[in-house]
């Protein structure tokens, strides 16, 4: 292995090596941080929602005119919906989880002035909520139909009972041995009894760190607008959606039906930003890999070209073909390694900069060795082609006088 002479020669003719080493350093920094960003985004997007997200959709009804009997309309609508084959459950819902719209309220365990409050996303639904959302009630009980509160649209009245998620219970009662079940807590500073704990559920705002702190209360607000959430048998959602719209239109034409949309679609819209960043970042990484590979191929080809006479001479002096290949691969490996060493520092610096100014989490250490190995392999594969071409330089070139 002729590492020392290769290094000596490289230092005397540094430019190509410096160019590629710098490229590799910056590439490593971008790839490690970029891959991390992609991973974090996909992790965020794929968080379990706790609901049967593939089979749920929503539709909104806007009654026209002031004679709108919200309670009767809702009752009729739900009956019609539930009669459609394939529908497992349906409920009124004040807003749709993962949609970006909803009601955020504060909860606390006591009414003391200094009592800590925590936030929750609230859904006004019914005793069919659990079935419709497909969530898991792990302790306590569901609402009974007579606990349903029908309230005027300007009223601030709340029912007596509430179901909350485990995450919310843990936030309210951090002690491991305590649970919110059966206790009276304060919802908007008013007492309410927790009758059921839901294992896990996501609320409306995917960027909110209290996303999993959800509560459900059995309320129907009597206004012109009523929203329904419907859950179907697995795989039947797309078929049932237009059927529901048609059925509702037929039973009552004094209204506008709008926003017929699946829960998956709501989620996709909420996560569109994350998805875009991930896709753009992956594109950049792929392009970067291609460009760096091209750069390496270009440099090694160039060096082979420049050193044709030298290669011939070495062959004349006794180098075998694999010696020639090995020379260029070793040289390329050295350049790559120098670039990667600088790149490691750059990667960490870049990450520190992103962490400080853009609230990005700190880079997971595993990305560094992964990036190193990836670029070593990339360098090797890219240099292989031109290196093998070098091996075909005829030793007779050494005696040519041009």
């Amino acid at each position, binding site marked *: 292995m002729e590492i020392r002479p290769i290094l000596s020669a490289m230092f005397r003719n540094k430019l190509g090596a410096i160019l590629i080493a710098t490229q590799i350093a910056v590439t490593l920094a971008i790839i490690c941080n970029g891959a991390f960003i992609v991973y974090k985004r996909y992790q965020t997007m794929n968080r379990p929602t706790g609901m049967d997200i593939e089979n749920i959709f929503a539709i909104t009804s806007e009654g026209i005119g002031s004679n709108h009997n919200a309670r009767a309309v809702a009752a009729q609508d739900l009956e019609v919906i539930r009669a459609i084959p394939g529908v497992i459950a349906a409920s009124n819902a004040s807003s749709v989880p993962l949609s970006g719209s909803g009601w955020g309220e504060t909860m606390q365990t006591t009414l003391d002035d200094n009592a800590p409050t925590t936030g929750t996303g609230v859904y006004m639904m019914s005793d069919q909520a659990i079935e419709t959302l497909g969530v898991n009630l792990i302790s306590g009980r569901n609402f009974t139909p007579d606990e349903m509160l029908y309230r005027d649209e300007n009223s601030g009245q709340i029912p007596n009972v509430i179901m909350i998620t485990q995450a919310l219970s843990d936030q309210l009662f951090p002690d491991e041995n305590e649970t919110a079940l059966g206790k009276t807590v304060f919802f908007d500073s*008013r007492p309410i009894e927790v009758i059921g704990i839901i294992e896990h559920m996501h609320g409306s705002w995917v960027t909110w760190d209290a996303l999993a702190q959800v509560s459900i209360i059995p309320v129907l607000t009597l206004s012109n607008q009523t929203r329904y959430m419907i859950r179907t048998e697995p795989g039947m959602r797309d078929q049932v959606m237009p059927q529901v719209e048609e059925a509702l239109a037929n039973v009552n034409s004094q209204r506008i039906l709008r926003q017929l949309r699946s829960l998956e679609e709501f989620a996709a819209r909420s996560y569109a930003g994350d998805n875009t960043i991930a896709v753009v970042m992956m594109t950049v990484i792929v392009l970067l890999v291609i460009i760096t590979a091209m750069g390496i191929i270009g440099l090694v080809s160039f060096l082979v070209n420049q050193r044709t006479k030298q290669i011939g001479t070495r062959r004349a002096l006794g180098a075998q073909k694999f010696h020639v290949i090995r020379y260029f691969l070793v040289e390329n490996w050295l350049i790559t390694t120098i670039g990667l060493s600088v790149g490691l520092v750059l990667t960490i610096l870049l990450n520190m900069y992103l962490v400080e100014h853009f609230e990005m989490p700190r880079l997971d250490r595993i990305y560094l060795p992964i990036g190193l190995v990836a670029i070593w392999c990339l360098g090797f594969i890219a240099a292989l082609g031109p290196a093998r071409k070098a091996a075909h330089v005829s030793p007779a070139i050494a005696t040519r006088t041009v």
Partner: protein
Amino acid sequence: MLLYNLRLALLSIRQHPILSSLMIAAIGVGIAACITMLNVYYLSAKNPIPEKSNVVFAVQMDNRNAAPDDDPNNPDLPPQQLTYTDAINLLESDLPLRQAAMFKSAFAIQPQQNGLAPYLALSRMTGRDFFQMFDVPFLYGGVWSDDEALAASQVVILNRETNDKLFGGEDSTGRTVVINDREFRVSGVIDYWQPSPNFYDITNGPFNDVEEMFMPFSLVWPLQLDTAGNTSCSGETSVIDSFESFMASECRWVSYWVEFSNAREAEGYRDYIRSYMESQKALGRFEKPINYSVLNVYDYLIAQEIVDDSIKIMVALSFLFLVVCLLNTIGLMLAKLLARTSQIALRRALGASRMDLIRQYIIEIMLIGLFGGLVGILLSVIGLDGIRSLMRANSADALLFEMDWAMVAAAIGISLLASLLVGLYPAVRVSGLPPAASLKTQ
């Protein structure tokens, strides 16, 4: 001489097609990444109303409940919206040149003609001053009268899209639209107007479509309207049990904007707001230490931090990406030039000075840079389009992903500057090679 050098440059590109294409591609891709990100960033941060941005102000007051960690020296940003009570009170002042309270509400439009089904549309409920304050262009008609505003008449201003839909684009001034079973008289139609960001109401996001209609703010009482925007309540919410009690509550759902002839007059207004809040505080409202802001559009948007951090990260990373592409290009340029040392030596022997050669090669690489920039612009348009569909953008959002002419100019500028920097070292180095060494007889 320039034309001659350009001709040589084109010839050189044709003689080394692969190498030149690689250079153009490398620059193109790097420029595309930067320009795409810059475009989104630039348009997100763009001043939506430059002619007026420093005389039009958003008014914000903090009526939230007192909290144990309230620090009068370090107040939070006051909430974006005001209560109805405060809006009505502020309207009494004659200090501003123009002012308007506003919110948006949803209505069912019931088209009477051409068999269209009723559909839901948003209307901005606001004062007459809104249109002059924000330079909203009118296509037909004009704003409703003072009397109509006072009387809470059922008048409406349509946007152009709605007018096209309902009246085929004709001048519909004076005609009737049935909304929520009521008849509204059309007082005017506004032309296409989509400030980006829609600064006057960013409570539901900074890039939303302008509402389809405008109606007098005063309609809120007779129609018992509720907002289709955000409502945030402080104070005692349990006592709210009627429309009246809601209107009198500490719930915030009204935006408020004022206009002055110059920024100095706004100072006097700030004093007015302060003394208003102090007098209200004496009545038991405004529990927190007095906290308010009167910010012009530019400052308001910055305070609200509407430019997402993600976009800033992407801009930074894309410039690093451009650096890699440029390093690549330097290498390719060097390779290209070093392959032609005999031609260089020949030219020197025939009398070209070193400067001549440097100029020739700089022009060559800048031509390549120009091509690269054009390729980059093309790729950028494709990229922006791709991002727009990934973002599932509504039409206001989509504006961010339209190539702004300033960005086209930036693309050309950056690629020319970058190629100049890239080409400098290779051109200087190669033109400095002693001619004799490269002159061969074969």
